[in-house]
């Protein structure tokens, strides 16, 4: 039998498998588009009049504010830890990335309890000291939401720009210096432009996160599309309004995703060829103390405060017998039940997402072209579909077409897969693109079938990359809130849901043990990812 020397160029089976995955990934998108288009024009008219402009302004305003804030904080922290002689930068490198383990809504709960006007710990303390109410910054509303979301999403930018700083050619900056640029002008005119693709990617990730965010904005009483859709779903009998709002939100997110994919395309040109060596760290001199203070403040607000407060609350909850009984016996199962639910649903989602991403990655790496690119981009749409929208489409679709799956935890898992498959797809594509096709060709020459080659050669070699993708899906699924809240069957609580149910009713101490555990569980996959990332330098 003759077979092409390259990997069977476009094996129909592979293309079919990848196409099916892409079709699966695009289901919610098309379903929502259909529902929105089919909605009564009267609903559109009413929403356009009363809601859409307002929500668009709110949502975009928050996205712009948080993205700028995360860029400023993330890049400056990456610069401090990667390019200067900041004291303790080895430790800061870890501490600054760890807030990724803290869901923004948990951070929001903590800062709200501390800073809430009059009721918060700090305003009350100030009032006691001063003998009268003192105005403290409020975490509520636009600025509060922007502050909290910036604090807990800057690590995306930090990690991506940190990697970019590390892979940057030292000679680039040296040439600029030799040509008479000051260090400051070199940073602005050479270094940052060279980082641009990485920065754009990070910024747009943050922006998409803001569009999808439900818990934080609901908690801080700032209305965006996501929270308005949730209210529509939770509070109204008519689902067409939710579908219309979802359609607008998804269109917005797809536009942002499209921009991100273009940025990703350009990012390839930053790959460095041989001769890389690290740039010498810049001596901060008398600015060392200031740099240290800024980095310490970022770690303080985004990591130490939430963890310390959760710890204190947990201790209070565990030592008070009534509260402990409430914590241990809440919901339909004990505490162990929802820890277990969190673990297995996120783990299964990670495994499914990685498995589904394989044909897509194989197609993209072995048969690049229009078809592969189209399929790969279709698999990225999950990024653009917020959890509430995925939940809405699944409720309607599963109940109509797969009633036996309805109200099982599997629907929750499917939501995680749909939402976070892009992370697995990217990881698989990148792992496969780094694998030389010659290895597989050798296996085929030696008589292995395509399947044997895949199982015996390809998979073992790309396993680390796949695990990284899986760890990312696991981490984000663990934190997922809105889709879980809407899709969970009775009695199926996850840690995130538990935290939310307690905190929504103002029972912060009862929420703390679950929140703390959620953070701790997130640290394991995150540490794996960070070690891998930092091992690349």
């Amino acid at each position, binding site marked *: 039998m003759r077979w092409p020397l390259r990997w069977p160029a476009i094996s129909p089976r592979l293309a079919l498998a990848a196409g099916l995955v892409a079709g699966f990934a695009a289901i919610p998108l098309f379903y929502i588009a259909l529902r929105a288009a089919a909605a009564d024009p009267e609903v559109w008219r*009413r929403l356009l009049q009363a809601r859409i402009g307002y929500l668009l302004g709110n949502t975009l305003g928050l996205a712009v504010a948080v993205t700028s804030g995360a860029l400023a904080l993330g890049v400056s922290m990456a610069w401090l830890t990667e390019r200067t002689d900041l004291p303790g930068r080895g430790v800061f490198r870890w501490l600054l990335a760890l807030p990724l383990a803290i869901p923004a809504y948990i951070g929001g709960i903590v800062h709200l309890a501390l800073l809430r006007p009059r*009721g918060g710990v700090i305003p009350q303390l100030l009032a006691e000291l001063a003998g009268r109410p003192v105005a403290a910054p409020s975490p509520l509303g636009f600025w509060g939401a922007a502050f909290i979301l910036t604090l807990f999403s800057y690590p995306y930018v930090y990690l991506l720009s940190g990697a970019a700083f590390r892979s940057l050619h030292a000679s680039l900056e040296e040439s600029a210096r030799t040509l008479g640029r000051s260090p400051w002008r070199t940073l602005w005119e050479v270094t940052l432009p060279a980082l641009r693709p990485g920065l754009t990617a990070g910024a747009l990730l943050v922006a998409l996160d803001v569009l999808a965010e439900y818990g934080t904005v609901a908690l801080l009483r700032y209305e965006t599309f996501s929270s308005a859709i949730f209210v529509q779903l939770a509070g109204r009998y008519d689902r067409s309004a939710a579908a219309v709002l979802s359609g607008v939100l998804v269109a917005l997110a797809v536009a942002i995703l499209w921009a991100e994919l273009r940025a990703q395309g350009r990012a390839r040109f930053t790959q460095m060829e041989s001769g890389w060596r690290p740039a010498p760290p810049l001596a901060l001199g008398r600015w060392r103390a200031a740099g240290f203070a800024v980095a310490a403040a970022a770690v303080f607000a985004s990591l130490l405060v939430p963890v310390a407060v959760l710890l204190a609350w947990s201790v209070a909850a565990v030592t008070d017998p009534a509260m402990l009984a409430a914590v241990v016996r809440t919901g339909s199962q004990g505490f162990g039940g929802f820890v277990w639910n969190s673990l297995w649903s996120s783990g299964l989602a990670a495994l499914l997402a990685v498995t589904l991403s394989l044909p897509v990655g194989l197609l993209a790496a072995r048969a690049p072209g229009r078809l592969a690119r189209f399929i790969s981009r279709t698999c990225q749409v999950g990024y653009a579909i917020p959890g509430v929208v995925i939940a809405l489409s699944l409720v309607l679709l599963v109940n109509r077409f797969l009633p036996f799956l309805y109200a099982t935890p599997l629907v929750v898992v499917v939501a995680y897969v749909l939402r976070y498959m892009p992370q697995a797809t990217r990881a698989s594509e990148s792992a496969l693109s780094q694998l030389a096709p010659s290895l597989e060709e050798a296996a085929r020459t030696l008589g292995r079938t395509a399947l044997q080659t895949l199982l015996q050669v390809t998979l073992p070699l790309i396993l680390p990359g796949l695990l990284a993708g899986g760890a990312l899906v696991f981490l984000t699924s663990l934190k997922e809130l809105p889709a879980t809240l809407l899709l969970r069957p009775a009695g199926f609580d996850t840690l995130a849901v538990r935290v939310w*149910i307690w905190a929504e009713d*103002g029972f912060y101490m009862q929420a703390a043990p679950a929140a703390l555990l959620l953070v701790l569980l997130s640290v394991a996959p995150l540490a794996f990812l960070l070690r891998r990332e930092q091992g690349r330098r």
Partner: protein
Amino acid sequence: MSLRWSLLAAALCLFVLTGCVAPAAVEPPAAAAALSGNLVIYSGRSEPLIQPVIEAFKARQPEVKVLLKAGSNSQLANALLEERNNPQADLFITTELFTIQALARQGAFQAYRPAGAERLPAEFVPPDNLWVGLTRRARVIMYNTDRVSAADAPKSLLELTDPKWRGQIAAAGSTNGSLQAQVASMRQLLGEPATEAWLRGMLDNKVTFFGSHTDVRKAVGAGEFAIGLVNHYYYHLQRAEGSKVGVVFPDQGEGQMGLLTNATAVGVVNRAPNLAAARAFVDFLISAEGQKLFAELNYEYPLLPGVALRPEVQPLTAVRLAQVDMIQATAAFDATFALLEKVALP
């Protein structure tokens, strides 16, 4: 390195195995003669307000595994309607009567007349027995006594739009069943234009709308807001935490609408998978023991005569209650949602 990877891989495999096993646990087991199996309750009462009753029921029926899904009345009502051909829940508990009445008309429930129903007031046991009332609660104004004196506190819901309270009032938002029911009642008592004007007045007055009444009561208790619009037991719960709060039973004056009240209720879902346990739970809810739990733990007005109120709860006998036609209000519930949406209440 490879050890770590293989550990992670092993962990992933473990998750998959459990993932394949766990969904099976959700399937309701075959009905047995004795009470057992899963009892699935959808509750519009928030979890802390229903959990103690579930615990007490479980103490009597240790073989029944109660699975609770708490949410807003309308979210769960939506789920029940969507699940009509594929019923998941056995019971539905609401915090007001309009939702349960609307669902009953759409055939979501099966008739069940619980043991002891004849002792409840007739208005809370409809002739078709598709639902049964559990407890009564009143819409009241609570205030922080550090910020407002009893004399200055508003005496009518309509006074909440007075600009002197601008920015000082907290209330629950439009997803809250009690607020929805209040607006539905006001539409009937005052008419649509007056109700719309009141809602717009609340919005103009910079009322802060929270997701839940617990937030409202805590904020008023802490003095973050001077005034809260809540159900009466939230005032008692906050007072029990030591806060300086007072309460007004509003609209008692001549020509005013009277105190708005509503009732929590329960219905047995049509084709409930675990009918026997569902019926036993309803019986328990209206028994003296169940009613006593609602009254003692949550300061509510039990519907079963003879069950004592908490001493600090003011009896409703001396209060003039608003007269709302339930059937009419239920029929107009859609219009209530449309109104909430029209004024864009958060």
